[in-house]
């Protein structure tokens, strides 16, 4: 009865709802190069061939000129920490991740910002402005991730 013990001071009578599980099949056809790239240590953004607008996260359609003709480009593999956090929360789906997990937003030399994990360092030793190398990995649970190495 995990659910019941998690809520505070349950004293009133309750009944359990029927189980409802969602697992979504997420289409990646239009951003496939990004998802494939993560497996090869590459992070791709897109740029509109018509107007030059670049997008990270990558998107297939340009909201600036309404064209749908994008080219992929690899983002710089170095950047600077803009902000970061150390999370002790365990959201459903992240039960096997070590806490605290450190998440940062990094600005690259090509002026794009991206999110990633910082691993192997205590958050107390991280500072805004710190330079990091940008890489990717496949987590033990099979999900890809972007990782920053100070």
């Amino acid at each position, binding site marked *: 009865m995990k659910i019941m013990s998690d809520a505070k001071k349950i004293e009133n009578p309750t009944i359990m709802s029927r189980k409802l599980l969602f697992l979504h099949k997420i289409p990646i056809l239009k951003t496939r190069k990004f998802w494939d790239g993560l497996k090869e240590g590459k992070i791709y953004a897109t740029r509109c061939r018509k107007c030059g607008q670049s997008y990270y996260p990558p998107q297939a359609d340009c909201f600036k000129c309404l064209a749908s003709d994008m080219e992929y480009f690899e983002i710089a593999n170095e950047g600077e920490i803009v902000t*970061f956090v150390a*999370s002790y929360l365990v959201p*459903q789906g992240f039960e096997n991740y070590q806490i605290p997990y450190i998440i940062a937003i990094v600005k690259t030399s090509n002026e794009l910002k991206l999110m990633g994990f910082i691993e192997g360092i205590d958050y107390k030793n991280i500072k805004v402005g710190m330079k990091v190398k940008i890489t990717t990995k496949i987590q033990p649970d099979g999900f890809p991730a972007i990782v920053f190495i100070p």
Partner: protein
Amino acid sequence: MSRKVAIIGVGNSKFGVRDDALLQEIAFEAVKEALEDAGITQKEIELSVVGSVGTRMYEALPAVPVNEYAGFSGVGLIRVEAACASGSAALFTAYNAIASGYVDIAIAIGAEKMCEIDTSTSTAVGGRGGNYLWEFHMFGTSFACYYAFYATAHMNKFGTTEEQLAMVAVKNHKYASMNPKAHLQREIKLEDVLKSRIICWPLKLYDCCPISDGAAAAILASEDKVKEFKIEDPVWIAGIGYASDTSNIVRRPDYVGLSATVKAANIAYKKAGIEPKDVEVAEVHDCFTIAEIMAYEDLGFCKKGEGGKLIEEGQTYIGGRMPVNVDGGLKAKGHPLGATGVSMVYELTRQLRNEGKNRQVPLKKYIALAHNIGGTGHYGYVTILRR
């Protein structure tokens, strides 16, 4: 030319872990109080607008049971969602229906149950409040993480301290201890906040609002109806501002303020014909302590970067330059998502009628402001009330 819209009745359920009641039973508490406050019955109401995020509830379409239980079956019904600003979106929808001349009386009901599921699931649902695929999917960014990004950047750029963040919590707990409808009705000390466990560094437990159940309701009416009902000196909606920001947080220029607040506030101030200094009491979206500090700045109550100083000087207490969240705020009154925006208007309406009792703010101009954010500035609503 839009018509004037008044608030003629308000209600608010008790906020908290409400395992004693269903969503519709909690909504009923708020609706009953609002109907009695307005001195009307359901028959007078032409449109029911229910603000509810709903993603944590077993009722997937919550407006339907809420509406039936409160005795509104048959009237026009809309459910609106604007994340944590769903309550303000409901008010805005009801306001527009009246201002446009389409209806004369509408009710905005904000209702949310968040405590029926476990914390891990709630955290995962809340983390989907920005962009699931490009952020939560890979990084498990909870809601606390999003505001923690802003806290780290704000502290780094302006020297805002953990103590200043803690002072927001101390203030809001003080007022919640005086509010019988608040979730956390107890005062806390600065060191309680500083010593509380880390949730998402730099935010600690007492920097975060609790997970709450609750509901609030507001009945809105046209000027014609106000005259017909012979309501003297009601509270008027003077202006509503609205804005949004990028879904992906990485697409924003910086993390020291919410542009949705700035934009929504500018619209609201212009519509109401006032300036920030005219506001005498404010409810701001303090889901995390850093959010209240940024709200001071982004609403123009102080200069950018001086929000920490404003709370340190005690200026946002009753008796200060700009009393903020004198009902306990989201931080201590609680934040049942869809209810929050309507609950802010409940408090401010009572303040403007001088019904604030031991929490009454002294007023001269009778101008109040409600600032309600959805997500991490993904939606922004600013509502200005005047009497």
